[in-house]
């Protein structure tokens, strides 16, 4: 009886909150606009994919693809392959990302600025370049395997390499999600525990780690989903380890079977939706508030052996990243890899001539998409965490769907949704921008939500009590507190746009060539040094843009005092 009454109370309070929202036209309009946008760019394309999966070539409703996939032993194995890979990669990425984030934000190891910069490298380059340097370093002709140890016939293709490369590629995402939350944990809670005589390990186990759980779970979820839908790494280095995303691609481009490919993608969405539901269920039951507006003290840097261990770990991982990218850099300046190692600039000249137009267009479209993605993501995070309204759950789930679906299939969904009136977008820049925005806003949503869960509502309430409106409070109080996830979200959306491979296979149009398609093209014909040179140019471009984004975000979100003049 009591629980029933409680539920009733909850329901009526949710209703009350909704009534309050009804009295705030700007907020209400924002909610409606965001829901409408999600309906058009997320739900509609996914409905088209569902429609493709459940109809046959004659257009009649059919379950033949579903029953075929469920009944096939090889598809079951491929499905389990995907899950196993994603689970392991997500675990390792989260652990590595956590160690980095903890070292950089909580115990302030030496060289943290350096680590913080370096860690962005793996997300700002097309992933198959990592695969390439693995082949160069550890392949049959590898500099390390053959040159250093004399090992011949080392088979570098397969599960182990795939795990390795995916962890290197994805752990920075875990890191970005975790730094936001770890740097926001008020150190006074740790200090309190310390004053009561708790050991550092004990504090970590009972205070810091539990408080960072929302970030850990977000990081795990994001890397899990990324590994599931990853196309380019398994394609280049997976060898005979088949994954569902690859099968979906093969079915679509090899058998020209859009229906079967769509059904495979839908099957792939299943684990994601489950993981996501578990996450929400778990987070809703706990409180993680530590940012309360009460005065805090500056953190005391830790000086103990533990920092050395963290430093060493970060240094080793960083050394590896440098080695991988160093190989790419050397490759870019090498005349002919494997034969003639003399210095040459010819690849830069060639790559620049071939792709400068595409580079400019990629940068432009990603730059348009990134802030939209960041703002939309933060807005969705804010609305879903702080407000109660009908459609909230749809907003939560739909924002993750485009992130989780394999890029090739999302491309098919976008084509079949926007190739005919009323919304005719194929061949335009808008379809690419839309794909970038909706595919990449998950990071801002995830890191924004987990940071928001830490911020005590009373800070916002204080602002409202002092007479600020909802928008004013959001802009002047909440948003500045969300600076880190906002920045991460924009950077992530930008670099994912610049480096997207599988998403754009079906969306690049003759008038809007993109630079990754050029890299992929060079890679396909094994013009590795040219590809490497182009990637170096891309990395430089992205680094410059990221610095500019950082400056812009800092300027815009600087907390400002009210002037009364």
């Amino acid at each position, binding site marked *: 009886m009591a629980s029933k009454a409680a539920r009733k109370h909850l329901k009526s309070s949710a209703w009350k909150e909704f009534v309050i929202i009804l009295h705030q036209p700007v907020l209400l309009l924002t909610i409606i606009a965001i829901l409408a946008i999600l309906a058009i760019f997320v739900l509609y394309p996914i409905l088209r994919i569902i429609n493709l999966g459940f109809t046959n070539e004659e257009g009649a409703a059919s379950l033949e693809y579903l029953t075929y996939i469920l009944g096939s032993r090889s598809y079951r194995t491929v499905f389990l392959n995907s899950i196993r890979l994603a689970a392991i990669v997500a675990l390792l990425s989260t652990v590595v990302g956590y160690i980095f984030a903890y070292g950089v934000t909580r115990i302030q190891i030496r060289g943290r600025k350096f680590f913080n910069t370096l860690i962005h490298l793996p997300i700002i380059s097309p992933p198959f370049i990592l695969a390439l340097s693995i082949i160069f370093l550890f392949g049959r002709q590898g500099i390390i395997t053959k040159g250093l140890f004399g090992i011949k016939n080392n088979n570098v293709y397969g599960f182990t390499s795939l795990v390795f490369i995916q962890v290197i590629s994805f752990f920075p995402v875990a890191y970005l999600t975790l730094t936001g939350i770890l740097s926001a944990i008020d150190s006074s809670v740790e200090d309190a525990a310390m004053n009561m005589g708790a050991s550092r390990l004990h504090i970590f186990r009972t205070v810091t780690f539990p408080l960072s759980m929302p970030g850990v779970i977000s990081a795990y979820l994001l890397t899990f989903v990324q590994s599931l839908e990853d196309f380019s790494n398994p394609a280049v280095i997976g060898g*005979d380890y088949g994954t569902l995303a690859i099968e979906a691609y093969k079915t679509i481009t090899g058998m020209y079977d859009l229906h079967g490919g769509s059904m495979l993608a839908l099957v792939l969405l299943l684990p994601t939706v489950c993981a996501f539901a578990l996450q929400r269920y778990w987070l809703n039951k706990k409180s993680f508030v530590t940012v309360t507006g009460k005065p805090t003290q500056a953190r005391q840097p830790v000086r103990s052996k533990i920092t050395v261990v963290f430093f060493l770990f970060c240094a080793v991982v960083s050394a590896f990243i440098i080695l991988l990218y160093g190989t790419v850099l050397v490759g870019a300046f090498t005349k002919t890899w494997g034969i003639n190692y003399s210095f040459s600039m010819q690849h830069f000249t060639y790559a620049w001539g071939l792709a400068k137009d595409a580079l400019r267009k990629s940068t432009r479209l990603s730059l348009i998409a990134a802030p939209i993605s960041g703002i939309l993501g933060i807005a969705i995070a804010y609305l879903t965490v702080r407000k109660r309204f009908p459609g909230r759950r749809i907003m939560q789930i739909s924002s993750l769907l485009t992130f989780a679906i394999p890029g090739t299939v999302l491309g098919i969904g976008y084509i079949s949704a926007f190739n005919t009136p009323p919304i005719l977008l194929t061949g335009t820049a808008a379809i690419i921008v839309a794909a970038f925005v909706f595919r990449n806003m998950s990071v801002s949503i995830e890191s924004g939500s987990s940071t928001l869960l830490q911020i005590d509502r009373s800070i916002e309430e204080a602002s409202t009590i002092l007479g600020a409106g909802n928008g004013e409070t959001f802009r002047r109080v909440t948003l500045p507190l969300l600076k880190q996830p906002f920045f991460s979200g924009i950077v992530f959306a930008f670099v994912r746009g610049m480096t997207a491979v599988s998403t754009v296979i079906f969306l*690049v149009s003759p008038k809007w060539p993109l630079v990754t398609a050029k890299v992929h093209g060079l890679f396909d014909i094994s013009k590795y040094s040219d590809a490497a040179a182009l990637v170096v140019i891309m990395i430089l471009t992205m680094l410059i843009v990221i610095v500019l984004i950082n400056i812009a975000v800092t300027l815009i979100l600087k907390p400002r005092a009210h002037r009364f003049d």
Partner: protein
Amino acid sequence: MKKLVCLVLSLVLLVSCVSAFAASKEVSIYAALTEDELPTYFNSFEEATGIHVNYVRLSAGEMASRVIAEKDNPQVSIVFGGGSEGIITLEKQGLLYPYTPNGIDKIPAEYVTSEYWTPFYLAILCFAVNNEWFAENEQPLPETWDDLLDPVYKDMVIMAHPSTSGVSSNILTSMVQLKGEDEAFEYFRKFKEIVPYFAKASSSAPSAVALGEAAVGLTVDSDTLKYMNEGYDIDFIFPNPTFVDVGAMAIVANGPEDELENAKAFIDYMISVEGQNLFITSGSTRMPLNVDADISEGLKPLSSVTVFNADRVKSGEERGRLIEKFIQEVDDASELH
């Protein structure tokens, strides 16, 4: 919040923009040839006619499935390159526009089998071999298909998967016509024991051989010659009999209307002597089909090899079923190690 609303509105505006019509001095193309050779063809075409080419490079499979996905509102005028099978699939689905180009009489009649697409180069299947590996292991070079089954090559032979590679699906369908279906699949089951895995793109075969990742790669002559010209110590061997594939191009039905004449001009240009000689200048070393065109140095003329001429229309018809069978019986993903 105001900014947010502004952005939301501008996004909606973006959505409502409809693409502007292309100028008539342009033509848009999906190209399934390699990225490095394309600028040569398109720039020369623009110099000769003043028509600018906008293009996207895709794999042959991506190209065909994109045209299928866009059939209600085709985005390009031409599909350019890749084996004939993908193009035949498009022809079957009624997605191509019939056109008989000027100068078609210069192409040997045996290759001109349809008015819906135009053949413009020939690819001869070969074994690309890494000379260093054979010298080091003191092995004789493989000469026939059966030579490849020798256990000494275990994990050293590379072939792309027929579902993702036009070269490989041509091997599959031609082999079935050559040996009969049962015997051909028996062969591939044995062959599977030799390869470490089936690669994604056929172009990865010659590169793997060039870099010493594999001793033998199944690929086509021009792709191999390209690496030889770059200085890699590899060679090609033509098995007896070998297979050939015709490179095809076609006009997409209901493509951008104002580009149709430009598209026809492009097809005409690419089979002219001037266009065909670009296979030399671009370094792609493709075998031209125009009887008056010159042949890249180092290419073996077709007359010097024994060719099994498969029925291409039949190949196109059987392709889907045979690949499905290949996945089920040869490359079963559940037999992972």
